[in-house]
């Protein structure tokens, strides 16, 4: 398989008939991207894996059947499929939640997503070296996953200013941690 093929060319090859190599390459490329979408919207590694599998199957079926007439629109097609599948998974999750409440939630231990490792002590040092308001914003933002009015009120600034403080802090933390800001 020529790994220089772009996504659209891979789509064309898959649409021309069963090409296992093209399909494998397509999976390798697109699966991690779908999984990130899943982590963002489902906040759960298992659910993100389920989403990835379902979106890949749906997309592959469409590609094999030649239903994607404009291969350049692959990302739009995948995004649309992701959105629909997330809705389905949320409905299933609600059913699952009812069952867990009925039979016990300890049946499913949480799984951490595969993310880059961090030097925890270095991060502590970097967070502690932020200015007070920037530290307050990033700590409370990422602890609460809260971005808006509460933080603005706590800091007596506008929500736009909270965003500026958050951006500045993230850039500084990334520099301090030794990654590109």
């Amino acid at each position: 398989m020529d790994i220089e093929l772009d996504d659209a060319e891979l789509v064309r090859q898959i649409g021309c008939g069963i090409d296992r190599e093209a399909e494998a390459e397509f999976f390798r490329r697109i699966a991690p991207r779908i999984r990130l979408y899943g982590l963002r919207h489902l906040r759960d590694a298992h659910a993100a894996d389920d989403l990835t599998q379902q979106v890949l199957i749906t997309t592959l079926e469409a590609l094999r059947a030649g239903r994607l007439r404009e291969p350049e629109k692959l990302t739009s097609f995948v995004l649309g499929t992701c959105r629909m599948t997330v809705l389905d998974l949320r409905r299933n999750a609600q059913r699952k939640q009812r069952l867990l409440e009925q039979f016990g939630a300890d049946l499913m231990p949480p799984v951490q997503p595969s993310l880059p490792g961090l030097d925890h002590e270095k991060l502590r040092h970097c967070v502690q070296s932020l200015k007070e308001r920037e530290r307050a914003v990033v700590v409370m933002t990422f602890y609460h996953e809260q971005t808006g009015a509460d933080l603005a009120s706590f800091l007596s600034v506008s929500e736009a200013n909270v965003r500026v403080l958050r951006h500045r802090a993230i850039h500084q933390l990334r520099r301090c941690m030794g990654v590109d800001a």
Partner: protein
Amino acid sequence: MKCLNPIDAAVLADYWLAALTDSEEEGVELHLLDCDRCGERLREVIALAEGIRKLAREGSLRMVVSESFLKRIAEEGLHIREYTLPAGGSVQCTVTAEDDFLVGRLAANLTEAKRVDLCLCDEHGIEQLRLADIPVQSGAGNVFYQESITFAKAIPTSKMVARLITFDEAGGERQLGEYLFNHTRSMPGPGVWQPM
């Protein structure tokens, strides 16, 4: 892996926090479904977010926090040891192995204060550390100072003075309140002062 139009890490953080508009979010998602370099940067941002969240839950940061943050911590089942002091007040305090967070609620009239610093001093009143321009909620009568629980569990019996300072228009300092913490060690450990 080359990206001609990379998405800034801070924007990716906004995406992770669901803080973008619908159209901004759609633009980011279309890009991420096409770009592994930015996907890698998003993974770094998520790891950073998770790391900060873990740090926040450890209670080991020295910082000013909000009441809603403490409420959320308590809802998680973590134990907060809180001491409330009026301006000019003092308190006998300690920390035990069961405590997850240590907080001083410092009462002061903050109505007119535009900038407030929190100074941490030794028992002689000599400043050891200053938290400059701390977050202060308009109209609030308290500052919630979170001391590092790791530090508090390690220090020997000692005294600490905290001062809230504001500034007049000429830049001169004005004290809003002074607070004396008489800390008694209740956990085993070294008998010398080891500032962090």
